[in-house]
């Protein structure tokens, strides 16, 4: 049984305004799946639907066989799916430590131990534990957002454009962090505009175009496909 299965998902922001028009996505435990595609393809909408922020008009999402597509975000989170939105993904006015406490809201008994674990993994956050989160740089904010998600020991992490707005060096560090989190046994679905780097670290990838699956397969195979390289990876004809 797959960790997560989304079948024939039709979803959007209102009746007659469907962004997803029958998307399917399967995630196995321990893998990184990249979701790439042009703007407006429905990548972020897919993550919001899995996270319970949107409910599909049609289709079914199961986590280890249990349906979750009608659950509110709180219950989805309780079942081990942690969503890190693209924007406003931290509590800017709370301190770094308070952000982590809120990240672990659903499991208060374990908060202290997990904060120690997070600080051991990300010493940068430990050094800034008392500072307001709004004072962190873009890369540090993304690390904090992911650390908050780790506070509930998720089985699946949903990352919406984690490298958006970061410098190339900060993005590279972030992708290394994502791989390290995955090595700890956490499956990751990552929506990314930076398709080259996303395919470089992902095991599998799905390409969405206009709310539908365009291509699915091994990330390395998709990255080597000349058509995909031309359309999504920005390769010039001489590079193909």
């Amino acid at each position, binding site marked *: 049984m797959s960790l997560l299965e989304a079948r024939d998902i039709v979803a959007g922001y209102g009746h007659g305004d469907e962004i997803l028009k029958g998307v399917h996505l399967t995630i196995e435990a321990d893998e990184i799946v990249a979701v790439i595609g042009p703007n407006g393809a429905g990548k972020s909408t897919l993550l919001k639907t899995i*996270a319970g*922020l949107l409910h599909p008009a049609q289709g079914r999402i199961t986590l280890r066989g249990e349906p979750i597509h009608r659950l*509110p*975000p*709180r219950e989805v*989170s*309780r079942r081990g799916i942690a*969503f890190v*939105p693209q924007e*406003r*993904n*931290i*509590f*800017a*006015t*709370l301190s770094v430590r*308070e952000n982590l*406490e*809120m*990240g672990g*809201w*659903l499991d*208060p008994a374990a908060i202290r131990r997990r904060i120690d674990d997070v600080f051991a993994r990300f010493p940068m956050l430990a050094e800034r534990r008392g500072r307001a989160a709004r004072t962190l740089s873009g890369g540090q904010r993304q690390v904090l957002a992911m650390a*908050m998600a780790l506070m*509930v020991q998720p089985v699946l992490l949903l990352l919406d454009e984690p490298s958006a707005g970061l410098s190339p060096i900060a993005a590279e560090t972030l992708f290394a962090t994502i791989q390290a989190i995955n090595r700890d046994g956490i499956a990751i679905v990552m929506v990314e505009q930076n398709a080259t780097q996303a395919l470089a670290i992902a095991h599998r990838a799905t390409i969405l175009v206009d709310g539908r699956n365009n291509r699915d397969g091994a990330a390395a195979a998709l990255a080597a496909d000349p058509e995909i390289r031309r359309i999504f990876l920005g390769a010039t004809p001489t590079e193909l």
Partner: protein
Amino acid sequence: MLTDIVQLVLNGIMAGAILAAPAIGFTAIYAVLRFPNFAVASHATIGAFAGYCANVWLGLPLLPSAVVAFLVAGIVGVTSDSLVLRPLRSAGLITTTIASVALTIALENLVRLGFGNALRNYDLPIMRDWRFGGIRVGPQQLEDLAISAAAVAALFTFLAFTRLGKAMRAVADNPTLAAIKGIDADRIARIVNFIAMGLAGLGGMLLGLDTSIDPLTGFRAILAIFAAAVVGGLGSIPGAVVGALTVGVAEELSQLVLPSDYRTVVGFIAILLVLSFRPRGILGARAY
């Protein structure tokens, strides 16, 4: 002249400290639920009358009566929000705000139905003012100040050090992310309503201690409460304290140039100045 100014500033600080309690209530509801709840006015009245019943009818001293004022206004706040305002919140800001005005009129008239229009006084010992040079300070004023300051300090401690207080700040900061993290926004809304309307009730009683109470006690104070919240930064709890002290002192100092009947105009002027020159208020919109 200097003595007059010092006296007025002192009076303003006392008045501002009392105003801070309902102003914090007003701004806390705005921070979490994102609408200006003018029913704070009627809850100030309800608190004033609950404190009156405890003090005059049951013979309780001032401090336990203030606790009764807080609890009764808080409970009525949670109940009225659940029955009237919460079902309307999905209809938007304007609808909910207008409903809060309707709610405050209805609750004030319920108080009028039960207690009539007569002015009522608390059962307090008469105490002589203390004099320091030419400055007079009433012992009752100081007690009011201490009660209000203790309530505000307790609230700040709650927000800074408790799990629920931090969750309140998180919902005020980013409600969508709070929902993703599993924080129950409805539960937080009930807690905010209880604390906010409790503070409004406490403020209503403290306002009445200095003078008298009637069903319009809260209504007369709502402009100053609103002004304090706007001046400090609507949605900012420390801002409400700063705003209340600013409005309190400004109202008192206005007596140097205006007849005392015109004090309420200070609230309008304060709102006008803030909206013209610093629309986010003195401390901005950060909840804490």
